[in-house]
C-alpha cells in the first residue's frame, strides 16, 4: 500500500503555491495535513502528479475574528482550533463538533480547511460550515473569491474549488446573541465517519437543522417554530441516502427523524 510517484513542492508562500496550481492544474493537489489525502494516496485511489505542501505557510496559520466570523487559515490544524481559547464562547457548536473529527492524533495534523476541501459528506466540518452558513475563501492566480457554504460542496467529495484554486481560509460566523446550538452524532465507533450527524442552530424565530452522513453533501433546512415530526420526516426523505455495509438508508432516515427531534428539542429547551 504505497503511493504512486509524485513531485513534492514546498512553496514559501501562497503565491508560489498558486503558480504551481496554475501550471499543473488538475495534476496538482494541495496537501495541508494530508490525513485524508495521504490515506487515499497510499491506497492509490488518488495519484496526483505534484503534491503542494502548504502546512508550513505562516500566512495560512492564523485564527482571527473578522466581521462577525472566525476566519481559520488553511494551515490551521483541527487541534489548534480546538485549543483556541475563544472558541467555546464565540462558536460553541464548533467547539462541540471538533472533538468528533477523527481522533486526537489525526487532529494534530489534519486541518479545518483540508477537511472542507476533501468534502466527505460524513465528516463534521462540512456540516458545521453548512449549518452555520459559513464561507470558504478561494485563491488562484486569477484572483480571490468567497464561496458560501451552500455553493461550496457540490456532492460526494466534490467542491467548487477549480483546478487552479486552493482554499486559503474558512469563515465560521460567530454565534449570534440569543442563538443556541446543539449537536449529536451516531457512528459505529467513536471517531468513525458519521452514519448520521445532526447539528442545529436556533433562535426565537426558527431553527436551522443540518444533517451529515445521509446525502452526498450536508443537507440543511430552516424551520420555523414549532417544528413538527412531519417536517422532520419530509426532511429525512428529501435527503435520500443509500444503503452501505454500515447502515441502511432507512436506518439513516430514522436517525434523522429521531436524532433530528432530539437536537431540535434541545435547542428549543435551551431557548426557553
Amino acid at each position: 500500500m504505497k503511493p504512486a510517484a509524485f513531485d513534492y513542492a514546498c512553496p514559501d508562500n501562497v503565491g508560489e503555491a498558486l503558480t504551481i496550481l496554475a501550471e499543473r492544474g488538475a495534476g496538482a493537489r494541495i496537501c495541508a495535513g494530508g490525513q485524508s489525502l495521504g490515506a487515499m494516496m497510499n491506497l492509490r485511489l488518488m495519484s496526483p502528479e505534484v503534491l503542494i505542501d502548504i502546512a508550513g505557510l505562516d500566512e495560512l496559520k492564523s485564527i482571527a475574528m473578522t466581521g462577525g466570523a472566525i476566519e481559520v487559515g488553511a494551515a490551521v490544524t483541527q487541534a489548534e482550533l480546538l485549543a483556541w481559547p475563544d472558541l467555546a464562547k464565540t462558536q460553541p457548536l464548533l467547539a462541540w463538533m471538533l472533538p468528533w473529527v477523527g481522533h486526537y492524533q489525526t487532529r494534530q495534523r489534519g486541518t479545518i480547511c483540508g477537511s472542507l476541501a476533501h468534502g466527505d459528506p460524513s465528516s463534521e466540518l462540512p456540516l458545521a460550515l453548512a449549518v452555520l452558513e459559513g464561507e470558504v475563501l478561494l485563491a488562484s492566480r486569477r484572483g480571490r473569491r468567497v464561496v458560501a457554504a451552500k455553493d461550496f460542496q457540490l456532492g460526494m467529495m466534490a467542491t467548487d474549488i477549480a483546478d487552479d484554486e486552493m482554499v486559503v481560509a474558512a469563515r465560521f460566523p460567530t454565534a449570534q446573541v440569543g442563538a443556541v446550538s446543539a449537536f449529536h452524532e451516531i457512528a459505529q465507533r467513536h471517531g468513525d465517519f458519521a452514519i448520521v450527524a445532526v447539528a442545529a442552530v436556533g433562535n426565537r424565530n426558527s431553527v436551522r437543522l443540518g444533517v451529515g452522513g445521509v446525502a452526498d453533501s450536508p443537507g440543511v433546512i430552516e424551520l420555523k417554530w414549532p417544528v413538527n415530526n412531519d417536517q422532520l420526516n419530509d426532511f429525512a426523505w428529501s435527503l435520500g441516502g443509500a444503503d452501505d455495509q454500515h447502515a441502511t438508508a432507512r436506518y439513516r432516515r430514522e436517525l434523522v427523524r429521531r436524532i433530528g427531534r432530539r437536537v431540535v428539542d434541545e435547542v428549543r429547551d435551551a431557548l426557553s
Partner: protein
Amino acid sequence: MWRTGKVNKTNNNAWIGRSIARLEDPALLRGGARFADDLATPANVCHAAFMRSPIAHGEIVALDTAAARAMPGVVAIITGAEMLAHSAPFITGVKVAAPQYALATDRVRYVGEPVAMVLAHDRYRAEDALEAINVEYAPLTPVLDAMAALEGLVLHPDTNSNVLHERYFSYGDPEGVFAAAAHVVAGTYHYPRNSCTPLECFCVIADYDPGEDAFEVTANFQGPYTLHTVMSRSLKVPGNRLRLKTPPASGGSYGVKQAVFPYVVALGVAAKIAGRPVKWLEDRFEHLTAATSATNRVTTLRAALDKEGRVLALDWDQLEDCGAYLRAPEPATLYRMHGNMTGAYAIENLAIHNRVVVTNKTPTGLMRGFGGPQIYFPLERLLDKAAAELGLDPLALRRRNLVPSGAMPYRTAPGALLDSGDYTTSLDRAVADGGLDDLLSRRDAARAEGRLYGIGYSVVVEPSISNMGYITTLLSPEQRDRAGAKNGALATATVGFDPSGAISVAVSSVPQGQGHRTVLAQVVADVFAITPKDVSVMTEHDTAKDPWSIASGNYASRFAGAVAGATHRAAISLRDRLTLIAAADLNVPPDEVAYGAGRIFAQHNPDNALPLGRLAAKAHWSPLSIPDGAGVGLRETAFWNMAELTEPDEGDRINSSGAYGFIFDFCGVEIDPDTFAVRVDRYVTMHDAGRLLNPMLADGQIRGGFAHGLGAALLEELSYAPDGGFQAGTLADYLAPTVMEIAELTILHDQTPSPFTPLGAKGLGEGNAMSTPVCIANAVSDALGREITALPLTRSNLAELMLEAEPPGKAKVFHGHALEGRGSTAVPASPEEVWAILLDDNRLAAVIPGCHDLVKSGDNSYRADVTLGVGPIKGRFAAKVALQDLDPPQSLRLVGSATGPLGRSEGEGHISLHPTREGTQVDYAYTVRISGKVAAVGGRMMDGAVRALINLFFKRLVSQTGVREERFDPSFWERLLALLGVNR
C-alpha cells in the same frame, strides 16, 4: 535406583501461580523487540507485491505482463503458469478435485485471490508495476451465500457440487427421543464472517538454494506444523528441504497467521525463479480482503426436552462455508468441537449432519475460538428459546442440564472426555460473586423506567490441546482404516545448561504475544529453585534445528496444558541428572540433594553446597567426572503426548481435545431506543481452566478473547455485497472495537486441575471468543423481546429488526440500492434521433462518461478507454460496451464492463424510448456490480458515484441531440464533470 532430588520445600512452586511481570515487556516497550519485518535481509533481496482478482468469480482469459516486466526496478513477474510448473496443489484433509495453488491458474474464485506477483527492487516499484499488468476476465456468476451454494454454479469444475463434504452422525437414539419428546424447539442461526485481524500483517522472506534444492523461509507463521508438510509438498521437496524459521516476536495472531502458509509457497517459488531472496510484507488492504476468515455457518438446531426442561437430545444441521477453497486444515473448524457438541450439558442423544460448501469468498482458517462461536451461538440461543417456550428461567434450565458435579472425567455422547471441573458449583459461585441478583434488580429498575435492558447468559466448555486425529472424524471408519490412525497432540520442549552453567529453554511453540517466555521461565525456575530471570527462553523456532512435530505451533490453546507441561517434563529430567552429579560432588545420596536460591545443597547440611551453575558447567568442562547414569551433555528434550487423545472409534466418538475448561458468562446490556446502540453495562465471566500458571497473563488472555467476542457480537464483519464485492478493505470499514466500545469485565476463576496435563493447566485464551458473542446476543434478545438469529448486532441491523413501517415522505427518492435502479428522463429529440446517437460510434463515445477512445470491436460492440471516478478519486479503465436486443427505435440493452487498477465494474441497462410531444421519454433500468479496491474501501461513495454517472450519461445524450437545453445550467454541467473526475 537413584531417586529424584527434591526442591527445597520453602521454594516449591515459588513462581508458578504468581502474577509476575513479563520478561518480554522491556524490549517491547523500548521498541527493541524484533518482529519479522525488522529482521535484516540480504542486500540483494527483492520485494513482492500481488496482483489480486477484483472479481469474485471468473475465468482468466488473458494475462499480459509485458509492460509491467519492462518497468524500472522490476525483477520478475510470476503468474499461475509458473506456479503450475514449480509447485503442486496444496493437500487438504478432504480429498476432492478442487486444487488450489498459491496463485490462480485459470479461474479466480474470490475477490483478492492472488493472480500474479511482481518482484521489484522495492515495494513502491512493485506496486507501480501492478498497475501495468492487464488481466482480462470472463466473469462467472458468483456464489456468495452458503445456502445458494447448494444449488449454484459449481466453483470447481472437476467436482460435481459445491458441497465438498457431507456426513451424518448419530449418538444414542436421537430419532427415538425426538419422536417421544414432550417439547421440541428449533431455530436457524447464521454466524458471520469475521477475523481477529492481528495488528501485524503477514511477512515472508524466502530464499532458495539450487545446489541443495532447498528452501529457507522466515515467516511469522504460527503453526500448526501439520502445514509444514503441506508447504513442502507444494514446493515439491521433502520436509528437510524446507527450513522454516519464525521471528523472535510476532504481532498477534489469534489463529490468523496460520494462513500465511500459501504465501510461503508463493515466495519460495518466486525466490527459485528470481534466483535471489524475496520478501513480502502483506498490507492491511490485502489482509482484510484475502488473508483468511472465520467460517460463516448456517445452523439449524433442534432440541428435544422433557417437561422439566431437561434436554434429552440435540439435532444439529450445520452448513459450513469455507470460502473458495478448502485450505488446510479446513474443514477443521467444523470438527474441532465435535466431541463437545453437547456443550457443558449431559445430553445423551445427538444427531449431527455436517456439510461443507465452497463459495466465492476468501478461504477460511484458524481463528480464535475456532469452531466455538459457530456452535455456541446456536446452542445457547436455542436454550433461551427453549426456556421461553417452557416458561422456565433460562439460567435454571441451563443449570438443570449441566454435567453433574462429581461426574468428572465425563465422557460425552460424541466422545469428549471432559477432564475436570464442577460446573454447577462454578456456576453458583459466579452467580453469587458476580452479583447476578444485583444485575437482576438493575434490569427491573431500568425496565420500570421504560428502558431497554436485558440480561444474557452463556455456558461453554472451552476445549484446548487439539487431538491431531479429530479432523479424521470427517472420514468414514472405513476410510480412516485405509488412511491409518491419526491421534495425539505431541508437544516438545528442550531445556539445557550451557558451559557457563546458564539455563535455556526452547519450545516448538511460536508465541504471538501470550507471554510464553515468562511462563516457561516460571516453570523452569521452580524446578531448579532459581528465578525466572535466570532462565533464557528462545522464542524463535527453526524446523532445521529445533525439535518439532506436527502438533507444534501456537494454536488450539495448547500452550499452558501441553507446551508448558512438556517443558516441565524436560526440566525435571534434566534436574534428575543434575541431582546425580550433585550427589557425587556433595557426597550425599541423591535423595539428600536439595535445590534453593541458585544453589544445590545437602538437605540436612545446607552448608554442604555448590552453586547450581558450577555443577551444571561441570558436565561440559569435565564430562569424565560425571557419575555413571547421569549421562553427558546436560540437555533434555521432552516429547509429551496424552494417552487420552485416541483416534475416533468405529462409532465416530472422538475426544477432540485434551482438556476442557468451563466458562459461565452473564451480562447486562442496555439499548438506546433511538439509535439501537448496544451498551454492555456489566459483564461477568467465570472460568475454570485448571491450574493458572500466571493469573495476570491468564486474565490478559481472557480480556483479549472477550474483546474479540464483543467485536464479533456487535461490530465486526468481513462483509460482501450480493455481487461478491468485498466491502471491508480498511480498518475504517472493518470495525474492531476501540477502547470506547469495550466493556468492563469482571473475571472469576475456579481452579480444578486437569488430571491429564502435567501441570494441571488448560487453555483459556479462546473461551470468551466462544461465550461472549452469544451471551451478548442473548442479552440483546432479552432487552428487545426478539429472537436474534444473526450477528453482528450493529445499530442498523437491530434497527431493521425493530422498526415498524416507515412513515411515508413527500420527497420522491430513489428506492432501494442505487446500484440497481430505474428512472426516466426527457430528451428533447425524437426517438429516431436518440436512436441514431446511440448507434453512432462517435456520438456514443461522446455520451459515455469519461470515454477517451472508442474502438469498434464487432457488431455493435466496442472497446474503450475511460476515466471514471468520484471527485478526486479517478482511474483509467479498459471498458467494453455492447448494444444488444436492438429494437429500433424503441428499445435496446446496453451491456458493459470496465476493469482497471481501482477495480472492476459491470453493468447492464435496458433503455426504452417513448415518443412524447416534447421529444422522447427515455425509460431506463440498470444494474451495476462493482468490485475490487473501490468497492472494498469506498462503499460509502459507490451509490452516489453510480447515480451521478447515470445522470451524466443522459445529460450527455441530451447535449448530443444538439439542443442547448436551458434547464442544464452550464456551470452545473462543469461541476458535474468535475464531480465525476471526467477529463473531457
